[in-house]
């Protein structure tokens, strides 16, 4: 399980960008969707995370692991990233049975020699210690021998006992015992002692063989699959077995490992309901079964992240609905991070915790399905999400009698909640969007002043009808209940669900949606990161122009102005930000700092005290400590020595690093010789 972070990821094919400066943070355990039309860069992003594509720039983090950083020359191979992938065509190995397909990733990783050597060394060490202890305690050996004898009698009980031993614990017990025995035999003294009785060894050898064969039969996976191949695989061929007998430690270890692997495969197969298919070849499976095998192959390894490239798009429609539900269930069960690429917005909406909508290599919007549906950030997202698609019309914002309306040429629509868009008349060219289900067709008489439309085509789709409407030259789609009695050619009055109206700026294509933190802000932050202060300020101002009620835009504008040296402008911006959002701690903190820069210590203290109050409310120790410390500084500036000491004490108490900082802080020059102050800073 891990979070995934992409920083400025860039991939070019020739001169065209497949992905350009993509930044994403995918949370641990999230079902994350990359959605977009073909060629939008979603698959490139996924393959970059998998390590199958080498990006041209940026960083990829899987958890705390930096797996790719072009700037630092880091690029981990796919096998070193611990991700599992499900492909659109499932990519099952055609020559392997389902069982072998699923076991393949485990087996390949098992081949990592260093790991094997490490495990063997570890086990030998444990074995050595145990042997020493066992030799000391001959009674213990006797006890084990007795157990051995019991095992033998159990084994002689034969198939029945083994078959009854459905309980896996039993099998494990047999093996454990075997292991112990192996260790004893390995011990030279013991071996020598036992060598005196060759018959005994031979007998034990025979028991071992019998045990092995019984274990073969008893193993539940093997039994259920009734697949000889599988059993054979468990113990490969006799030659190998013979070779391994030389090292009993190893056989115990490997056999146990393999049973472990078989168990894992069985678990994965069970989970996806393909236990009956384990001995089939992929060509003998249906599309849905193949898809599940591909999933089983992915989950068997317990990877940190699942990467899925349109895994459902090769299924027929009916199966897809079912598989979608299964996939959601699977995510709930395994709880690992899923990254899922699709062009199907229905899949995206139904599966995703969050959706990133990509277009032409860059991020259009990131949000929950509810977010992107109800608050599309721009015209592209609005148009991409939803079937039938949203109705989009160009129009102009007008103001009449103090009311805001949208003039779309053939009709004018008055906005009831006029206040939200008030003041935006400076950019009157807009795009008006309304989803079909929010276009209501009123029955009965046509009312005065209503918008009149002609019914053009009626498409019944079952429970609902898609009604194509014409208002003059404009086309409009409405999704209405099939119960409504409508006829082609009828003139009807239509109305829009006010709360579901989307208005976009025509020039920027961005939503004029107060609930959406404006992309202009992000654009400004990015510009500032690049050192373009002026550009950043322009972007923030644009954001504010589009929506003056966005506190974060004002806050960022303040920071940028301050960096530019415009302290007074900065203070105004901060004040605006905290006026819009009185709980904006960072804005209060910065407001205080900037006021103190202008020697307005009283104002600084007021602002910081608010920040302190909020920090205490939010139980945020870091902010609290900082607020105390800042209050100390400003009090020093204001000449309130007593309060300085008090605030500093509190700050140092939370975080004693502040004593060090205070030691060098010029704010305290006036009280540097104060004994109490000296006392305080010497605490560290």
């Amino acid at each position, binding site marked *: 399980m891990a979070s995934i972070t992409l920083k400025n990821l860039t991939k070019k094919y020739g001169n065209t960008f497949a992905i350009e400066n993509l930044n994403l943070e995918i949370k641990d355990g999230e079902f994350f969707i990359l959605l977009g039309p073909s060629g939008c860069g979603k698959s490139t992003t996924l393959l970059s995370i998998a390590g199958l594509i080498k990006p041209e720039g940026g960083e990829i983090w899987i958890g705390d692991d930096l797996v790719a950083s072009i700037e630092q020359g880091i690029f981990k191979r*796919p*096998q070193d990233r611990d991700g599992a*992938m499900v*492909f659109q065509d499932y990519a099952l*190995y055609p020559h392997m049975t389902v069982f072998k397909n699923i076991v*393949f990733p485990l087996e*390949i990783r098992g081949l990592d020699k260093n790991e094997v050597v490490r495990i063997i060394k570890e086990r030998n060490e444990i074995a050595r210690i145990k042997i020493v202890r066992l030799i000391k305690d001959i009674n213990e050996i006797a006890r084990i021998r007795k157990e051995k004898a019991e095992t033998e009698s159990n084994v002689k009980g034969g198939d029945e006992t083994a078959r009854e031993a459905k309980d896996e614990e039993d099998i494990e017990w047999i093996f454990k015992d075997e292991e112990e025995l192996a260790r004893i035999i390995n011990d030279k003294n013991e071996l020598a002692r036992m060598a005196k009785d060759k018959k005994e060894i031979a007998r034990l050898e025979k028991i071992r063989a019998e045990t092995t064969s019984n274990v073969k039969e008893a193993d539940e996976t093997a039994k259920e699959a009734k697949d000889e191949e599988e059993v054979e695989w468990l113990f490969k061929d006799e030659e190998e077995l013979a070779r391994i007998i030389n090292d009993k430690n190893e056989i115990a270890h490997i056999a146990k490992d393999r049973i472990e692997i078989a168990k894992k495969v069985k678990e994965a197969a069970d989970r996806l309901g393909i236990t009956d298919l384990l001995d089939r070849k992929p060509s003998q499976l249906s599309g849905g079964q193949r898809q599940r095998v591909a999933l089983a192959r992915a989950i068997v390894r317990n990877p940190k992240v699942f*990467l899925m490239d349109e895994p459902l798009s090769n299924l027929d429609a009916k199966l897809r609905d079912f598989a979608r539900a299964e996939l959601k269930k699977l995510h709930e069960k395994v709880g690992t991070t899923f990254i899922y690429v699709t062009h199907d917005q229905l899949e995206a909406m139904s599966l995703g915790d969050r959706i990133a909508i990509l277009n032409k290599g860059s991020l259009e919007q990131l949000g929950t399905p509810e977010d992107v549906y109800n608050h599309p950030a721009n015209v592209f997202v609005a148009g991409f999400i939803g079937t039938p698609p949203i109705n989009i019309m160009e129009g102009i914002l007008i103001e009449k009698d103090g009311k805001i309306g949208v003039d779309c040429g053939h009709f004018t629509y008055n906005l009831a909640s006029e206040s939200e868009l008030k003041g935006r008349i400076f950019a009157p060219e807009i795009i008006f969007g309304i989803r079909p289900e929010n276009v209501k067709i009123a029955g009965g008489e046509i009312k005065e002043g209503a918008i009149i439309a002609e019914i053009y085509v009626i498409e019944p789709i079952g429970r609902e009808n898609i009604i194509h409407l014409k208002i003059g030259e404009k086309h409009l789609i409405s999704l209405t209940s099939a119960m409504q009695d409508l006829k082609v050619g009828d003139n009807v009055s239509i109305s829009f669900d006010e709360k579901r109206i989307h208005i976009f700026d025509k020039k920027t294509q961005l939503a004029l949606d107060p609930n959406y933190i404006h992309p202009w802000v992000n654009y400004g932050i990015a510009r500032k990161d690049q050192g373009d202060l002026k550009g950043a300020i322009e972007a923030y101002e644009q954001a504010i122009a589009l929506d003056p009620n966005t506190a974060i835009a004002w806050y960022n504008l303040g920071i940028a102005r301050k960096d530019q040296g415009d302290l007074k402008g900065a203070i105004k911006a901060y004040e605006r930000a905290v006026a819009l959002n009185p709980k904006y701690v960072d804005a209060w903190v910065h407001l205080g700092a900037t006021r103190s820069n202008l020697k307005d210590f009283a104002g600084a203290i007021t602002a910081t005290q608010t920040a302190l109050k909020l920090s205490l409310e939010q139980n945020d120790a870091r902010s609290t400590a900082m607020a105390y410390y800042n209050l100390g500084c400003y009090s020093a500036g204001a000449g309130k020595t007593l309060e300085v000491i008090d605030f500093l004490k509190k700050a140092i108490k939370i975080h004693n690093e502040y004593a060090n900082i205070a030691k060098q802080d010029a704010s305290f020059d006036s009280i540097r010789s104060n004994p109490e102050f000296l006392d305080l800073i010497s605490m560290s």
Partner: protein
Amino acid sequence: MKLHFNRILLYIILIFLAFVTLLPLWTGILTAFKSEQDLILTTPVEFPLSPTLDPLIETFGLMARPIMNSLVFTITATILSCLLGSITGYVLALHAFKGSNTIFVLIIVGIFIPYQAVLVPLVLIMSRLDLYNSLGGLILTHTAYGIPICTLLFRSFYAEIPKSLIMAAKVDGAGIWTIYWRIVLRLSVLPFIVTAVFQFTNIWNDFLFGLVISRGVESMPASVELANLQGGFVALWNLQMAGTVWYTLPSLVVYLVLGKYLIRGFMTGAVKG
């Protein structure tokens, strides 16, 4: 009715062309069973009056050892060039890197070069490596000059393996060799048959390399020995044809049994190369 007539005409033409195609073989095989007397008494397309195995028996003694030689180096070089071609084709088709296409083109140039352009150095190389007039020399030569066409064939075959399969194996943790050994090779049965049949025919039919690299019985290929028969049995057509039958037999059997694979090889080799 017109249509019907056209069909009949079509089959007549097809059968006539088949007859023309088989005629040289037919007369060759018949002649191999003729005594010297029959050679004079019968026309070349007639059955022998008294069929005899004598020409075949007489030439068998001469051809047996060269045919063994040919079998040894042909089979060995076929296996080696197929293996190397498979690995090279695999890397170039499924692990393309910057410059891999250039490397591929540079390799397949080897298919087209006239061998005369390397003949003198080849003889010098072989005598320096002490491989002149040895089966080892022929194996090395045929393997080296077989790699280009084998690479071409295998690369074409492997290009059809879905990329996702390779990606899946990488994500599953397999490295470049493991992917080859555990996956690609297991899917290569048909490509190996096709390429092997193709290569077997090529090497078996070779004359030029045998001509310049062999000098004596220890390495003499059947093709060169057959050419020598010409000088030994001037005008003894029955013996010449008998020798031809012996030499052709193995490759003819391969063609008649595995012909469809050879045809696939020809097509893959031609369409792409």
